[in-house]
């Protein structure tokens, strides 16, 4: 018996451009992310409903109980005394390619005098704005915001 059906060639989907798309995505992702060498400290921050204030060049000051007892802060993997904080911040800010934002991650129960010392050091260094970081309060189910 003779078959009259034509044998169709299998359809090939061109996949070569997929590689280009994927590599473009990767380049975009790498170019838009920031690599920081600062190891963070886990702190219990004040619970306040606040807005997101992200920055491409964050300078994060950590102040926990241990550091406050030594009258120092944790900044870029180092313990910095309050008296040297302004100088160190200015050094870091000068290395950044664009404007920086200074964040203060302070544990919620640290006495206020330590916060004031950090504020004074930043003020003396000419920092115009400080962001006191917070964490969002826990939402109780059924409670209206």
């Amino acid at each position, binding site marked *: 018996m003779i078959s009259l059906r034509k044998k169709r060639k299998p359809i090939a989907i061109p*996949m*070569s451009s*997929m*590689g280009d*798309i*994927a*590599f473009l*995505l*990767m380049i975009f*992702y*790498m170019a838009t*992310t*920031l690599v*920081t060498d600062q190891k963070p400290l886990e702190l219990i921050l*004040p*619970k*306040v*409903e*606040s*807005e*997101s*204030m*992200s*920055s491409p060049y*964050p300078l994060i000051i950590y102040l926990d109980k241990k550091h406050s007892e030594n009258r120092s802060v944790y900044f870029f993997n180092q313990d910095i005394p309050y008296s040297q904080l302004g100088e160190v911040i200015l050094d870091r800010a000068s290395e950044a390619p664009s404007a920086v934002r200074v*964040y203060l991650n*302070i*544990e*919620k*129960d*640290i*006495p*206020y*005098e*330590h*916060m*004031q010392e950090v*504020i004074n050091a*930043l*003020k*003396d260094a*000419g*920092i*115009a*704005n*400080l*962001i*006191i*970081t*917070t*964490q*969002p309060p826990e939402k109780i189910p059924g409670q209206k915001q």
Partner: protein
Amino acid sequence: MSVKIRKKRRDMEDIPLSSTADIAFLLIVFYLASSSLLEFRGVSLPLPKKDAPPMEILKENIFRIFINENGLILHNKQVYSLGETMEILKKERKKNPEVVIVLKVNPNAPSQMVPKLLREMQKAKIEKFSMGMEKK
């Protein structure tokens, strides 16, 4: 008479490129999985200039509030909750738009009260304020 010997044309060999997409996507997945997202939420505190002259405020425009060592808010030696304080501040501003809130914080007060109060003041659009620490 010369005889032309033609070389046989070889077909172009295809390099299989379909796997490069898989490699690139695997790299993206690795990159996404190994990086962490930094997101900060916080309260912005504008700092005065180092050599800025002291603010001159008329006595009648000053409204003082204190945060004591237990983190309680006081006005005229009376304790108020955060909500009550905000109501008082809003009323005061309505009465006198030139009012400046002078906040004095006890050195031993828990620092968390400061961003809480600042945030509420920002929400209420109270921008004229001064903050300092009580003398020890």
